[in-house]
């Protein structure tokens, strides 16, 4: 990595060469105008690295995360791609459960731990029904059919008809 002063007139005459050298050899050219430094020509990758360095300095939590991640990997705790996807969804569910439990707890006065336990138990029952029968009954909502591959995955609630509270929910591709 070299650093070189070059006048703006010389730089203009050989900009293609300087730009290539900045990219390939990580050379830096300090462009001068009337003998004074005015700007710097650096390779794009190096510019991104510099920007990232500033980012890292401003976000100590990212630096801490990097150190934690490196430590975990050195300890052999790497997670495979397939497991990564499962864990991401599992963590999202846990976060959502905790958030809902806090809301319900605040509205009902029941402690969040009890609410969360009830929600966990209900979710397990629903998942187990979907697993074994391909459909599940959600109290207060009705019956939900299994997610269909190729559909958007969003469940659609049909118009409720009077006297028929237990209505089957269908995926968008079915309707």
């Amino acid at each position, binding site marked *: 990595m070299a650093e070189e002063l070059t006048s703006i007139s010389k730089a203009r005459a050989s900009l293609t060469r300087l730009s290539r050298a900045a990219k390939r050899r990580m050379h830096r050219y300090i462009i001068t105008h009337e003998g004074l430094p005015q700007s710097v020509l650096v390779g794009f*990758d190096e510019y*991104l*690295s*510099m920007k*990232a*360095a500033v980012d*890292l300095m401003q976000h100590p939590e*990212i*630096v801490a*995360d*990097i150190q*934690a*991640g*490196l430590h*975990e*990997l050195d300890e052999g*705790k*790497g*997670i*495979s*791609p397939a497991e*990564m*996807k499962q*864990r*991401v*969804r599992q*963590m*999202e569910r846990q*976060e959502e459960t905790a958030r809902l439990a806090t809301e319900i707890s605040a509205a009902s006065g029941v402690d969040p731990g009890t609410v969360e336990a009830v929600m966990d138990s209900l979710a397990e029952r629903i998942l187990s029904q979907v697993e074994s029968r391909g459909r599940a009954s959600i109290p207060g909502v009705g019956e939900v059919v299994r997610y269909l591959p190729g559909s958007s*995955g969003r469940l659609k609630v049909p118009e409720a008809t009077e006297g028929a509270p237990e209505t089957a929910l269908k995926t968008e591709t079915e309707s």
Partner: protein
Amino acid sequence: MRSYWYSPTAVKRLAELHPTDEELEAIDSEAKMLAKTPKTGFLLPFDNPRELRRYDVGRFGLIYRFDDKRLDIVVVIGA
């Protein structure tokens, strides 16, 4: 080809960013591509025995390291 792995911290941070199914697939697909061509990302100035690089996939930044046999996604941040 190198195998590729995610650190538990990377997975945790990724979950916090709530990726859609499509984004999750895109991240994993790019991680697979990085395992083949690991120098695609730009170098991060970080004091570490092995070089760290960053590669952005949509609104996510993958920070990774690699050697001849494997590539590790060290952490995922918001791009």
